[in-house]
């Protein structure tokens, strides 16, 4: 026999069961006089009915979106303000910049800052240097990247995974580890006779300096990874079809895979070019011999750091704009490629 503890307690204390209570309630006169035919069902949660809940929800949604949009607006003001201030400052004269009361628009728009920049800061030379270094190192990178990505994506060879893992592991090594030795290495390579400025190598002093800004950057593990992922998405059937048509691997790579992976290659091209434009440390080291061989970022910091007395912020900002605007233009025209290329790092692919 099953032992029911609840029944036992109820019996013990002479309590009524729920059913008994309900039956008692139904037996009362008030209960029987309720007219069920004129009743309406009202569903409530807490104290609110459905209509009130819907309204509350709507108000809640509006409040949330107001908060969301104002937060986003506030953050975008913070993000964009430095750019605005850079433009405004470049159009002000020094007394206005250094005034106790700051103005949000220049009292007199002063274009002469830009003229001063072109006279004192050798912008054209620096841009020329940067373009030479950037384009040659980008093309070199693209070639090595395409070849390596093809090997990793399409060919099958012993130790493939191990080598790829080692390559990826190099991304975690801080570049500073390499800079010290590379600084010695580029001086010892046959194209360069270190320090003296005398030419015993294959190239002239200037060309040697440029080569040392280019050749070490002809390989980028991250882009190999990026392109390998892209190559892997190209269906196997295309490869087999090309094989049937008697195409070699080499022809397949350049006639089928490269055109198909064009968007990624464009991303790599632009990102690499931007990298050259922004590089600071290495060019600063290797161009120590001659200021006019520097890249645009190096010129930027060194041109205005030595001014005595009050800093000439107007001219500084004008130069900064000249350096920033080409990047922003690239971004405007190639927004899709840049964001796709950058965003690929952390997500599936």
């Amino acid at each position, binding site marked *: 026999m099953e032992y029911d503890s609840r029944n036992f307690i109820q019996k013990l204390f002479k309590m009524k069961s729920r059913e008994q209570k309900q039956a008692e309630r139904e037996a009362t006169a008030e209960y029987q006089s309720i007219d069920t035919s004129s009743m309406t069902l009202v569903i409530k949660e807490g104290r609110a009915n459905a209509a009130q809940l819907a309204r509350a929800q709507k108000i809640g949604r509006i409040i*949330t*979106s107001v908060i*969301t*949009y104002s937060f*986003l607006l506030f953050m*975008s003001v913070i*993000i*964009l303000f430095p750019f605005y201030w*850079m433009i405004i400052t470049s159009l002000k004269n020094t007394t206005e*910049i250094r005034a106790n009361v*700051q103005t949000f628009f220049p009292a007199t728009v002063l274009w002469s800052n830009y003229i001063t920049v072109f006279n004192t800061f050798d912008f054209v030379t620096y841009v020329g240097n940067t373009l030479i270094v950037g384009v040659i190192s980008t093309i070199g990178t693209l*070639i*090595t*990247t395409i*070849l*390596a990505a093809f090997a990793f994506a399409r*060919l*099958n*060879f*012993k130790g*493939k*995974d191990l080598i790829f*893992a080692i390559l990826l592991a*190099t991304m*975690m090594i*801080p570049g*500073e*580890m*390499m*800079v*010290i*030795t*590379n*600084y*010695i*290495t580029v001086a010892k390579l046959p194209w360069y006779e270190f320090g003296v400025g005398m030419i015993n190598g294959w190239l002239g002093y200037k060309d040697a300096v440029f080569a040392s800004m280019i050749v070490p950057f002809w*390989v980028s*593990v991250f882009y*190999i990874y990026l392109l390998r*992922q892209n190559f*892997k998405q190209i269906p196997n059937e295309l*490869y087999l079809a090309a094989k049937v048509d008697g195409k070699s*691997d080499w022809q397949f790579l350049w006639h089928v895979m490269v055109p198909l992976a064009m968007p990624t290659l464009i991303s790599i091209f632009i990102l690499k070019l931007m990298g050259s434009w*922004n590089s600071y*440390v290495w060019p600063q080291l290797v161009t120590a011999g001659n200021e006019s061989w520097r890249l645009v*970022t190096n010129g*930027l*910091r060194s041109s205005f*750091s030595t001014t005595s007395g009050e800093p000439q*912020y107007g001219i500084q*900002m004008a130069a*900064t704009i000249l*350096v*920033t605007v080409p990047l*922003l233009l690239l971004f405007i025209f190639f927004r899709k490629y840049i964001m796709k290329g*950058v965003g690929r*790092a*952390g997500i*599936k*692919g």
Partner: protein
Amino acid sequence: MAAVASKKGGFLDFFKNLFKRKERVSADAGERNNWKAWLYLAPVIILLAVFTFYPLINTIVIAFLKDYDYTTQVSAGFTFDNFLTVLTLAGKDEAQNLVYKWNTFYSAEAGGYVYQNGAELMKVYFQTDVLKYALPNTMVITFVTVPLSIIIALLISVCLHSIKAFQKIFQTIFFVPYVTNAVAVGMVFAVLFDSKGILNFLFGLGTEFYWIDHAASWGHGMIALCIYIVWHALPYKILIFLSALQNIDKQYYDAAKIDCAGKFKTFMNVTVPMLSPQILYIMITSFIGSFKEYTSVVGLFGSPSTDGGSTKNMYTIVYYVYDCLSGTTTVSRGAAAAVMLFIIIMIFTAIQFQVSKRRVHY
């Protein structure tokens, strides 16, 4: 077919899958073209060997060489002194030798050992600077900017994800700092943080409140630096988080809704776990990045200090490494500092991988 295994996630997965995967359907089944693959890989392997693997080993070797002169590549043998010198422990004895050799003396005012060179006082060794400034600064930068920027980026990307109108415009705006030059924008921030600049004016701090110049205090300089670093670090994180958010299956949110989970609960129990691989990736890369902070200091301060170069209170480890490259005999010290940086980064990465084993959902 072979792509499927590695399609699951970012390259962090790759390491995890590397030893698990046994069966692979090869693209050109049966045919093993070893020599051809090596030919394709040759340029990359040669370049990496010369400019990455050799330097890696060589830098470690240089770090253990005594009185190494990189122009002649001559050294006086093996030593641990470089590491000790970087950490100031061997400073005194060495200074004694240098007094003999170079007319060097200790200057508390300059914060290091100086030597007389003609009429000019030049500092050669700043042993104390690494322990006093570079290491603490790097740690502060790392442990302030990385969590702060990740939290702000998460907030922004969740907000961005929840809106429909203007999403693209906001997304573009938040990405703009990524395409700027660290040195150039650092100079812009220097103008913003100027004592007579807009920030002091807006917050009513007067014209005598110094952030980055006129021997501003360490704290003020650090605040300005951290704000700038966070500002510059946001876009990349937002981009990664947003694209990850867009890839989360809607079903999880529907399930949370059925369970009557609130907004915050949904965020903590659905969004964060679903984003955990990306958060781990971002954490590792930004930890490594902030240990190597250098160009932002150059951009903002122009020198590693708030007073034009004498105290080096804004020094970072990497700044020290590059300073060491400017002297011919200090290179091995720079190498020692770089090796220490490398070890620190490796330890942090290993810790994060360990933690991720338990916390990260794939």
